[in-house]
């Protein structure tokens, strides 16, 4: 049918050519509106990160070398940093799923208006500065902080437990900060689940538990995976919370990068670590993008 229409119009007509070039000109004009944003990304992201990429391949003698990358494989201290980073990221993601799934499920079951109200419990922390929240956890978890006081007076433990400046404190703080990134996409995907499916399952004789695991859970998986992925990737490059709540004992990649810059002023080594972090992030997102439809979850974040 298309060809029939095309045949009717003589492509040689000057009028049509004019219209087409006018259309192209207009499209170009429109696209030029995106130029400022484009140039800023080139200036602030592309050039600086490209520069770091270049620096990571320059050795101590100013020549091309792979020494920074070789050190990463050879030195035990680097291996420890990578292990810690993955450990913290995976544990935080698991904690978020464990805490976030019931919460998102609870919200998705409520009538829209009530859900909107209770959603404030997720949004208020989300909008509050993460520095403020990290500080709050530092105060709560201290040796003579509220949590220890409370637990001791409740008889849970007798002497104050060290809850902060270690892995425990880091994980608690990170989970608190990352939770909204999991709950929001998960809640979105749960709201999209057709209620009729659950009716049908119940009608066909499935017990509530059966219909949850056979119907609801698999349908909510896409949101959960997308949310977990965002949390995991954000954790990989996280700096503030591990630096404050880890108290120097939880050294992740970002912490290590700043330490290298502060102590040795070694741009090559710091850049190489940064490049590894970026490549890991891109590879994870790319692999995930191939298997999942990430767009909706990532772009619908706010």
């Amino acid at each position: 049918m298309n060809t029939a229409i095309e045949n009717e119009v003589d492509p040689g007509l000057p009028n049509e050519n004019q219209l087409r070039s006018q259309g192209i000109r207009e499209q170009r004009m429109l696209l030029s509106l995106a130029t400022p944003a484009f140039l800023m990304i080139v200036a602030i992201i592309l050039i600086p990160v490209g520069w770091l990429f270049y620096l990571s391949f320059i050795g101590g003698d100013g020549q091309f070398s792979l020494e920074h990358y070789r050190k990463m494989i050879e030195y035990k201290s680097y291996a420890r940093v990578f292990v810690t980073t993955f450990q913290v990221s995976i544990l935080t993601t698991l904690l978020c799923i464990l805490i976030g799934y019931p919460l998102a499920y609870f919200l998705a079951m409520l009538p829209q208006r009530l859900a909107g109200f209770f959603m404030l419990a997720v949004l208020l922390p989300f909008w509050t500065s993460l520095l403020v929240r990290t500080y709050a956890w530092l105060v709560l978890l201290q040796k003579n902080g509220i949590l220890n006081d409370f637990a001791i007076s409740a008889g849970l433990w007798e002497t104050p437990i060290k809850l902060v400046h270690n892995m425990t404190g880091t994980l608690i703080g990170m989970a608190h900060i990352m939770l909204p990134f999991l709950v929001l996409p998960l809640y979105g995907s749960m709201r999209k689940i057709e209620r009729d499916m659950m009716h049908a399952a119940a009608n066909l004789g499935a017990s509530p538990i059966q219909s949850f695991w056979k119907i609801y859970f698999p349908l909510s998986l896409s949101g959960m995976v997308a949310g977990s992925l965002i949390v995991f990737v954000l954790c990989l490059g996280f700096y503030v919370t591990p630096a404050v709540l880890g108290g120097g004992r939880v050294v992740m990649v970002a912490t290590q990068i700043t330490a290298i810059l502060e102590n040795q002023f070694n741009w090559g080594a710091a850049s190489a670590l940064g490049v590894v972090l970026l490549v890991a992030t891109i590879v994870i997102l790319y692999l995930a993008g191939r298997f999942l439809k990430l767009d909706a979850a990532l772009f619908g974040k706010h």
Partner: protein
Amino acid sequence: MRWWQKPASDTQITHGNRLWLYVLAAIIMLLLVIPTFIVIPMSFSDSQYLEFPPSHWSDRWYIVYLESPKWMRATVTSLQVGVLTMLVATPVGTMAAYALFVSGHRAARAIFVFLITPMIVPVILIAIGTFYAYGRVGLNNTITGLVMAHTVLAAPLVMIVITSALRSYDLDQERVARSLGATRVRAFFAITLPQIKFSIVTAALLSFLTSFDEVIIAIFVSGGSNATLTKHMFAALRDFIDPTIAAISTIMILVSTTLLLATQFIGSRQK
């Protein structure tokens, strides 16, 4: 029948059976909210040590904050950078989102993905990268440098907000205006803009907050008399627990809560 009299789920579970979920969700929500707001009562404590509940109330930490030239200077810088970021990121992001949404060019999608890369690149990398590049061109410790870096973080958020607003807006209205003789620019300002203005305000508030709360880039790129509030706070947190931070935190919570409630209010008016 009100909702609590109905079965709680489509599989005929009663609310009584669901009690465990309600209790669990309540605990989780408390755990989310309490640590966010606990610093507010603590900031009014008279003690050197942060205690809860405070044994004596006082506003001394607010006075320490208000009388400290260092904190005041940092507050002014943070506000300045936040407002400038908002003023740059909102039009830049809106223009890009509009252009890519309306043009229908085949490269539009790829450009969109490129323009939101700042959301994917780890911030620590942007921080050290700009720190290094700024060192070459003398932009470190300047307001301009910080605003540029924060704009790049905020613009993708603006683009996402505006794109989703355009999606629910009927672009044919603009076409009608143009067929009646309005220029493209006039059609945008007279027809489209008034209908997406609430989203633009939301996007602007979001970009202000992105800059105001940003820590990592500020640690590297800001300094001297142009150091931000977050940079000083971070330095203070690493060293010791200063109750002044509780007072400043309270003010920051107040700012972000007000802005969040404003966007919620705007959102409800938009519907």
